[in-house]
């Protein structure tokens, strides 16, 4: 195995292990902090796959914004220090099944779609901002636009929900 492969396996194990801890930890804030490790390890995997731009966007958006929002919400609602006994949800079996099914669908579709593809990570220009931009706004522009409409809908939904109080 090359150095890159060893690092990739280590980061993958790190992402997987911390993801399990996100699910089983007995403290909500610890869950959120383990999520930081998971997302960071994933960013490392992207880096090793030569997707440099994607890796830093992952850190900027997920670690810098999404996890901060999560922690903000946890602190606003309930986040006592120390372990809390009743964190285990009654739908845990359903949740596990859903997670396994989603993982199965993703793995099968990725293996079917890209299973035989080999990328040359030494060439350096497959994951940079220019390549990503031209792919995103070239062949995948429809999906990009649909996603932006979805985000717009979520934005309008948030405004509607937050202004409901005033009308009553």
């Amino acid at each position, binding site marked *: 195995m090359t150095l890159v492969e060893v690092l990739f396996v280590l980061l993958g194990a790190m992402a997987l292990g911390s993801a399990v801890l996100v699910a089983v930890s007995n*403290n909500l*804030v*610890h869950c959120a*902090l383990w999520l*930081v490790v998971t997302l960071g390890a994933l960013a490392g995997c992207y880096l090793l796959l030569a997707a*440099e*731009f994607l890796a*830093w*966007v992952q*850190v*900027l958006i997920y*670690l*810098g*914004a999404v*996890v*901060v*929002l999560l*922690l*903000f919400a946890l*602190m*606003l609602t309930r*986040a006592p*220090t*120390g372990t809390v006994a009743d964190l285990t949800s009654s739908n845990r079996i359903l949740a596990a099944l859903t997670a396994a099914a989603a993982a199965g669908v993703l793995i099968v579709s990725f293996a079917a779609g890209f299973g035989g593809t080999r990328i040359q990570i030494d060439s350096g220009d497959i994951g*940079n*901002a220019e390549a990503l931009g031209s792919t995103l706004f070239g062949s995948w522009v429809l999906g990009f636009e649909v996603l932006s409409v979805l985000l717009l809908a979520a934005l309008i939904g948030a405004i509607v929900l937050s202004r409901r109080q005033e009308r009553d």
Partner: protein
Amino acid sequence: MIDWWDLALRLGIVLVAFLVLPLLVGQLEHKAMAHMQARVGPMYAGGFHGWAQLVADGVKFVQKEDVVPAAADRSVFKLAPAVALLPYLVVLVAIPIAPDGAASSLDVSLFFVLAVMSVGVLGSLMAGWSSANKYSLLGGLRVAAQLVSYELPFVLAAVSVAMAAGSLSLTGIVAAWNPWWLLWQLPAMVVFFVAGLAELQRPPFDMPVADAEIIFGPYTEYTGIRFALFLLAEYAGIVVLASLTTVLFLGGWQGPWSDQLGWLWTLLKTAVVSFLVIWLRVAYPRMREDQLQTLAWKGLVPLVLFQLVITTVGVVAL
């Protein structure tokens, strides 16, 4: 193959800069604030105008007992100062002080810098939550609210420069800079600097550590060396913000004789911006929480969106 000696030398210089520059900024703050308020500041430590005051402070902090509150979440509490400080060290690696003067040349170093900087705030949140103190928790909440609001204008202002330069690399941005940008990118510069101050929780954006209301916010329970690390993170943050403002908006190493003296220009401009950060602390009173949010959402975000329009017109039409 990578030249390992060259790399080690560059990383060594970054480490020295990381240890020295924040202390210089701290000492500048002591003296500049004092003279602006008609005091003299520290005069005794080290002899000449109290130059060794911060070294003496550091020795004092090391000697103090490292107290962890009984109700605190020990591991998170102990980890928080490192999470707050380390991102600034990593960011310094990517900042070019001369045309060939960055310790690491990344293709997308602008995004690298923004991404890594945004991790530092997790340290404040961890500190605020794990202290098991209501004032710390309130401070942590204020940190999060402030960051969520100011991250957007901060990143968009940097995007405007990247569009103008046509490059995501800090070296490329400085190479593409010309004095005309001082006018063209002026709104973005103001937004970047103000939002950066808010991210560092520097006055007048120091609501999260407002001493009259919540003691010292997320850092209330910290003592000794861990407290010193948070202070160091604040000054390292000033150095990083000042050098980023220099590199993105003030032309970095560009100036007369920039072939030989480029690094000096970068350091000079960084020092001037750092002085401005200190000056603002003395000049303005602390903003209230609602004023903070109003400034971000009704002031900075529209302004930076307007700037993006101007930049687009400039790039496409000129």
